[in-house]
């Protein structure tokens, strides 16, 4: 197991390197440069200024030279400044955006998981019941409805019509001065709708997986045996059936974890949530390469780690799986 882990972790290094080359090249080869926006609409900006700034920023050099500069600093933990925000790119990504995204996406993931597993099990045990049909229909809707549309619908119903919840943003500016209690309540109220919207697809998908996975297991012979030896139904379901049925869901959840870091650009836009998704999207559009690079590399790292994690979790959940 340990050898397997070491091998996978070592392999991650060249993978990350290759990703960084490809991402950097794609960003650098994209048409346009950061100076364009500066000179657009500025009649005093001469061509000489343009060339001076291009030289100053090293944009006259080919992309692989620039990549080398970037890499040699990045390995030392210096990801350069954000041109747009006038602060270190890493600080912008990790301190300003990452916490918001972790809160929203992490909570959505938890909610989706916490709802999907019991719902899937319930539907499998009461197959063809009214509840099963209702949940299946809801799942169908959840998978089909685009998240931005659902988001707008939620806002319309709960904010505009009923006025129960705020329509977007992290919180009310200045609420922190009214004490910790008010602050927490305010933040939670602002989280309800975006979490609902963001978790809907995963909730629906995972419920379906859980249901079909459970159905497969529940008719197996060892379940019959468990029942035959007089185990209470509770123990049969939770101990014997669920433990086997949940395996594929673990993979799905593990693979969804990197998404927690990358954020969700649509949900973030609809609910005005300053998270990673919007940060990356805006950085690419605005040619703010350093921000895009540090964010994308961090997400790549997590995708690799979570893949390894999924394999390990497999082994833990199913003693038959060995990696030696």
């Amino acid at each position, binding site marked *: 197991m340990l050898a397997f882990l070491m091998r996978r972790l070592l392999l991650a290094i060249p993978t990350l390197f290759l990703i960084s080359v490809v991402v950097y090249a794609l960003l650098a080869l994209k048409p346009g440069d950061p100076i364009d926006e500066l000179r657009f609409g*500025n009649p005093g900006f001469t061509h000489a200024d343009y060339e001076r700034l291009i030289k100053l920023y090293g944009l006259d050099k080919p992309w692989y030279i620039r990549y080398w500069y970037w890499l040699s600093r990045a390995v030392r933990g210096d990801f350069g400044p954000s041109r747009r925000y006038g602060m270190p790119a890493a600080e912008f990504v990790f301190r300003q955006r990452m916490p918001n995204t972790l809160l929203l996406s992490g909570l959505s993931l938890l909610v989706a998981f916490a709802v999907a597993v019991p719902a899937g099990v319930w539907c499998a045990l009461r197959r063809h019941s009214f509840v099963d049909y209702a949940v299946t229909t809801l799942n169908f809707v959840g998978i089909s409805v685009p998240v931005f549309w659902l988001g707008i619908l939620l806002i319309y119903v709960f904010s505009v019509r009923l006025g129960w919840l705020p*329509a977007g943003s992290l919180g009310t500016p200045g609420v922190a001065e009214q004490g910790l209690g008010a602050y927490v309540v305010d933040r939670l109220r602002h989280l309800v709708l975006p979490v609902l919207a963001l978790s809907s697809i995963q909730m629906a998908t995972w419920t379906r997986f859980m249901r079909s996975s459970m159905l497969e297991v529940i008719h197996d012979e060892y379940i019959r045996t468990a029942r035959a030896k007089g185990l209470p139904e509770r123990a049969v379901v939770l101990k014997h059936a669920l433990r086997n049925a949940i395996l594929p869901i673990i993979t799905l959840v593990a693979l969804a974890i990197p998404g927690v870091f990358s954020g969700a650009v649509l949900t973030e836009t609809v609910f005005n949530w300053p998270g990673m998704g919007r940060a990356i999207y805006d950085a690419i559009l605005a040619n703010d390469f350093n921000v895009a690079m540090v964010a994308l590399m961090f997400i790549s790292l997590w995708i690799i780690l979570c893949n390894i994690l999924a394999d390990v979790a497999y082994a833990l959940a199913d003693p038959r799986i060995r990696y030696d």
Partner: protein
Amino acid sequence: MKRIGLWVLCGLLGLSAMGLAQGPRMGGELIIAFGTDPESLDPNKITSAPAGMVLTHIAETLLTMTEDLEIAPLLAESWEFSEDSLALTLYLRKGVKFHDGTPFNAEAVKVNLERFRRASYRFLLYPRVQRIEVVDEYTVRLHLDMPFAPIISHLSHNFVAMVSPKQIAELPEGQDIVAPIGTGPFKFDKWVRGEYVRIVRNDEYWGPKPYVDAVVFRVVPSDATRLVLLETGQVHAIMRVPPLDAPRVAATPGLEVVKVPSVRTIYIAFNYQKAPWTDRRVRQALNYAVDKEAIVKEILGGAGGVSDAPIMPLIFGYSPQKPYEYDPEKAKKLLAEAGIPKGFKVTLYHPTGRYMMDAAIAEAVQAYLRNVGIEAELITMEWAAYLSFLFKPVHEATFDMFLLGWGTVTLDADYGLFSLFHTSQWAPAGQNRFFYSNPAVDALLEKARVTPDPEARKDLYAEAIKLIWQDAPWIFLHYEVQINAQSTKVKGLIHHPREYILAHRAWLE
């Protein structure tokens, strides 16, 4: 459209009259939502209207442009040009202090202007200033290398704001100002990037003090979300309401829509040096072929005005021309005379999401052109790619037509005409990306730059506009009208044509 005139004119007078009836209330926190986070709050770095809007509450300029577009004193009480127009003397307001207690004086002005000068691309906003002389504690003289009349409007631009010389001195090399210290009615409080900027009342302000305790500018990129925040009472005023939503907002009790003409003109330019656009008949024909009235009415929902000059009516130097009326038959006739075959294929490049309904407008133009036998292929690009495409020099420029907008932010024709139509400004050197060239226009624009007498300048611009209009280097489309909305609980907000909402004298009921 009725509201436009009303709002531009009412300004402080009308609003304070309303105030007398009810009495402005002190206190409260005013929240304004806009679409883009300021890229910076350093006067030396800012380039966009949202950034200018926040900064203008904190740091003031020497001169200012009122909402009815008059140049008015602010930190400079008066100014005068020398006989030869080569020196501009500014007499500064006395007893003004920056938020950190540093006195505002001639030395402070010099430090600020010198700082603009060092960042050369910003200083080029007024490139003619050669030397800044401190005459006495409250007098500054700017020495120019040649007469440059538009400098007055340039100094009134909100980007040229004064910050504390102490702050500038203490700023580490290569770093930008993040928390500007100005002389304005509000002090910088907090800026959470991508979320909001908060400013608080400056109780030591030299002028009339603000009524509200604080103003929060909230960044809300999505149009729909911004609207909902207003509808649910989470914000008091928003910028850029989608035109098609405006009637609904106007009908909502407790909300009102405010239309403000913007200084941005939208046009479709021809590749002036490429056949068949070298033929004036072809360019004019396309102007006759497009129904601008219908575009403004149907696509923009009235949030615009049909162009009758290359700059919009509020700009100094504007002179209306006889519009090219919608007349497809005349267009066909002109095209036939110029020998353009039926089904002639052209390319029309356009951005999407940059200007109000830009893609829809391009599609409409495509349909109008098809009517007169021209097949326009629409090519849309992501903004950054579009910009670099449009900075190509003449021998590399392959387009037939492109759609773009230009905001004459100094509100002086020089900024709107010289940059776009003078031959020296051909891309990539300047903003004349369609390679227009007319020696007569060049001469008029040059002369207008160095003529100090406003009336004489107006005549020169009128003459230049007439020639440009006849040459028709563009399909003259429209100028945008900015649609803002606010809660009726807020009084005294000023919606400025520079795409600002000003909270200087606003109060909450």
